[in-house]
């Protein structure tokens, strides 16, 4: 499995992680992932993931007027999103712990 595939599978959690720091627009989320050392994420994956999270009530989207250019859609985490992030993080940590245990056993 490639890094990109791992990234795609864990994208909702990664998006919630980025938004837990501060509200952000779509391109900003993508940039934050790259800055953290992950691969650039295509809009074809990012925007459907954002729409699904918004539909689930995990994030909220609002248009914000920019001083220098057109309005930008900015996403922020909701209380439900914080809870969802906690659950996803716990599942991820449990998975990593188990996978490392398997690796050590071999």
């Amino acid at each position, binding site marked *: 499995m490639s890094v990109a595939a791992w990234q795609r599978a864990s994208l909702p959690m990664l998006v919630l992680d980025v938004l837990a720091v501060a509200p952000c*627009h*779509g*391109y900003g989320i993508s940039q934050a992932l790259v800055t953290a050392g992950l691969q650039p994420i*295509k*809009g*074809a994956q990012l*925007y*459907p993931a954002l*729409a*699904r999270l*918004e*539909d*689930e009530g995990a994030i909220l989207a609002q*248009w914000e007027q920019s001083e220098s*250019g*057109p*309005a*930008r*859609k900015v996403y922020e985490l909701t209380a439900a999103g914080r809870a969802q992030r906690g659950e996803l993080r716990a599942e991820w940590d449990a998975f990593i712990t188990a996978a490392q245990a398997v690796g050590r056993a071999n």
Partner: protein
Amino acid sequence: MDVQTWPTGDQKWVARYRTSIAGKHVPAAALEARERELLDAVREAGLPAAELFGDAAVLATEDVAELSTVDEAVRTSEGGGLRSALREVGGTLVSFACVAVLLMLIRSGWSVDVDVAPALVAAGVVVVAVGWVVGRALFSAGNPVAMVRVLVAVGAIAAGAIASAATVGPDQVAASDVPVPPLGIGLIAPGVLALVAASRMPQQTLREDWDDAEWLRRFRGGLRARLVPAATARGHVAEIEQAMGSGAPSAFAEFGHPLVLARELAEADRTARARRWWVATVAGMGTPLLIAAVILGLGSWEALTIPVAALLLLSAVITLVVGWGERPWAKGR
């Protein structure tokens, strides 16, 4: 993969697996690879497929969840290209022809007088039905302007046919004592030809050459075709434009096929899901009820009027029951 490749005892199981997975948007290559994987496992274990994997339909449902793609859904569904439109046109023509032949047999026996006026009206109805199919395909493909053009054209043709029928009057006969079997074959043949042509067409591939303006037009059209509210669709388009302004090389390179993205975003939109449910349920119930009312009003099926109307009513009830089970506000995502 040829079903004969499988052990004889497993061929029924494979056929059931294939039937259960057909039309669920699993790409052919992925299905082929999955079947090869299953066959290898059967050979290695030396056990029947049913014993190794359990019920074929259950496994197929799990595999659909894993292997189906939105690209495949767009490629094979209405609006995915000429093949799907031609298949639906063929189905419509065959249905109309079968009903016409049945009515002729019931009302006139094995030979019939072909009156000019009813024939013109029937031709007008067929043109409208085919135009409706083509128009819907264009709408689903995110091309509402072409859809309007097609609907206006078929409307004009149908109006012309009805006007001609009114001019000709009811007594003019085009042909007398025409035997129904060859006439029936002649009526059914165009639809069958369209279905055969559709089945022989190569698998559609999704277009890859888009300029950004056209990509955005089709994206907006795709969202509206999936019944996303206008304001939400405008928001998605503006967001894509905003992202493109941040340095995306091209809309296609960054976002893929416009209808695929539109479909994914529409799936995540609660209002669009509810709207699609209402349209499907109301149309699925309303159409058979309307036809039943017409049949009962005209008594056109003579002795079969009540059974045919009852079947249509049953179809409407089944649509309601199935639709109620699928209602979006009672389903979790």
